[in-house]
């Protein structure tokens, strides 16, 4: 059942910049959100007195700020600081707070290479694709990759395949998904591999791989359904409709308008691609 969370304090006139994340916040809920999503990388921010000055003066929470400063003064750890901040608002429930603290603890139990992979996973979720790709590649090129369990190695390859697909390199992505499946045996990797073959038009190879891997019938049905829905959705996009309109222009012999429209559409698609890559 949904709810309407009452925000605490006030919204500041001027934002506060969380330097380690290069993100600015204006209220307590936004601060909680950023800490929750970056519990391991935000630690440094939790020990800046300026943050608590800001909470007191700009966010209108002087008592909470005083309490946090007191914790800082008594050398409380990062977890204590996080809990104190989370408990200032109703943004996260007790269960959610416990979950992030468990994730925080688990992180420091990981080997360095596993932590790096987890950092890259987070970047991928945040659509910081180039940074994520760089870290995954770095892991693959280093000796540390041998420390990864097969399942995690497979997941790393899968995520790298996702990045390649976003970059338009479906051929490379298909190879990575195949490798990922062989390592991790995750059905999602197999599904993406087979879909990539379909999109690349490699029907013969697709038939061979279906016989080789013998995926469950449900998986194949799911793939067919996903393809169908994706095609339907694509036909509803503005770009597809524009393409249909341009085809009509061409058939009507309006060549000049056709080329003008095509140039504009291509430019738009290129721009979208560039923005995608920058993220």
């Amino acid at each position, binding site marked *: 059942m949904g709810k*309407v*969370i009452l925000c605490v304090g006030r919204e500041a006139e001027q934002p506060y910049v969380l330097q380690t994340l290069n*993100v600015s*916040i204006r209220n307590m809920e*936004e601060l909680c959100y950023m800490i929750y999503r970056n519990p391991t990388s935000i630690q440094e921010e939790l020990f800046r007195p300026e943050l608590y000055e800001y909470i007191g003066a700009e966010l209108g929470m002087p008592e909470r700020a005083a309490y946090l400063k007191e914790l800082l003064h008594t050398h409380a750890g990062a977890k204590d600081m996080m809990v104190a901040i989370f408990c200032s608002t109703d943004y996260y429930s007790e269960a959610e707070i416990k979950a992030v603290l468990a994730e925080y603890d688990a992180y420091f139990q990981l080997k360095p290479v596993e932590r790096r992979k987890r950092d890259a996973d987070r970047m991928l979720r945040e659509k910081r694709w180039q940074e994520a790709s760089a870290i995954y590649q770095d892991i693959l090129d280093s000796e540390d990759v041998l420390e990864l369990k097969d399942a995690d190695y497979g997941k790393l390859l899968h995520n790298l395949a996702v990045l390649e697909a976003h970059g338009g390199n479906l051929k490379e992505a298909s190879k990575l998904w195949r490798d990922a499946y062989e390592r991790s045996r995750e059905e999602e990797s197999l599904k993406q591999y087979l879909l990539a073959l379909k999109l690349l038009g490699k029907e013969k190879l697709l038939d061979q791989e279906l016989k080789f891997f013998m995926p469950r019938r449900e998986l194949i049905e799911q793939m067919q359904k996903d393809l169908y829905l994706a095609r339907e959705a694509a036909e509803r996009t503005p770009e597809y409709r524009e393409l249909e309109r341009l085809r009509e222009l061409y058939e009507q012999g309006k060549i000049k308008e056709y080329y003008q429209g095509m140039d504009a559409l291509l430019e738009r698609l290129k721009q979208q691609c560039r923005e995608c890559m920058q993220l």
Partner: protein
Amino acid sequence: MSEENFFGLDLGEEMTQLSWYSPRHQAPESVSLSGKEQEFLFPTLLCYRAQAQEWLAGEDALRMAARGGELVRGLLGKLRRKEPVLVGEQSILPELLMERYLKSVLELLRLRCGAAKLTCMAVTAPGMDEELRTTLLQIFLTLGIKEEQLIFLNRTECFMYYTIHTKPELWTNDVALFDYDGEHFYYDRLSFARKRKPIAVTAEHMDFTGELEQQRQHGSDEERRAYWFYEMAMKQFHKQYITTVYVTGLGFEGGWAGDALKKLCNGRRVFQGQNLYTKGACYAARMIFLGLRKDYMFLFGDMITESIALCVYKDTRNDYLELAKVGTPYQQVHTKIRVILDATDELEFLVDDILKKESVHEVMILENLMQRENKTICLELELTYVDRDTPVVRVRDIGFIEKQSTARIWEQIL
């Protein structure tokens, strides 16, 4: 005099009255400021005697004026208009004149009431508004009365306090009041909602001065005036269940309305007198000071008759957050809060109208909500009133973590 003494001061344009709450009789008693038995009206005027450089108030002022002193009338009107007065060759501020007058009143109060300690005094005057209240307060502070010893009420409020202290059978149904000072003509009607606690006492106030003035301009005599009064009263009583009527003000003196009042007595009790406001003020002083108001909710003028709350998640549970409180003047209702939606697109309000038996849940659905990650839709919610009966909720998307606000706005009348 007891240890705690409560007073009601009715500061009129022409006459002023004072009453004191008698613990023995459990009711206010009128105080004769002039010291004469049964003479409770104290003229609201001053007289300046140049030779002695002396100021006199009330009856003494009238007597002095007869012997050549300079009379200053209309103190209240001059105070409102901020009109300085030329006395002799000196221009005197109206605040100073009122200060002199009230100083005399307070001195006479101490004289007549045996130097009793003034615990609390409620002051009323025609057209009591915030500006007049502030001016009178300053004057009383200058005279050594503390702010916590004073309450300022308009006359409608005094009428309410007076009525609820009469016998219960007199206010089982609606109660009406006609107030005519010879120039201004007012009508008040009180109704009572007893289905819930506290009892809501709602006042409707109307000004018929203009209508009466038209009558005068057409040269109407007493008979026509009486006819107008009766017709106006019956029009107001139409489809209203009014069984008690009060008539006050020096304008009713002389008996011109006698026949009309007799007709009004048909199926009703009618009372005529001049001390309703001072006694009502006295009751109010005692009730408010001693915190005895909790069984009643007094609503008049621009006050809203409902409380509005929003269901929010706060302190780890769902609860209702009050956005508007019954009894607040509608112009003062301006609440702004921020909320974040968690797996919902609805806002649930609880509207509790004190005049109705039950409260009502009103749901505002935020249509075409932005497609965003859960708990990243942050909204600013604002509640205001267009008029006393029309609350409006305005909801605006203000963005979350550098996500640009769509500036989308939803509005709904509750």
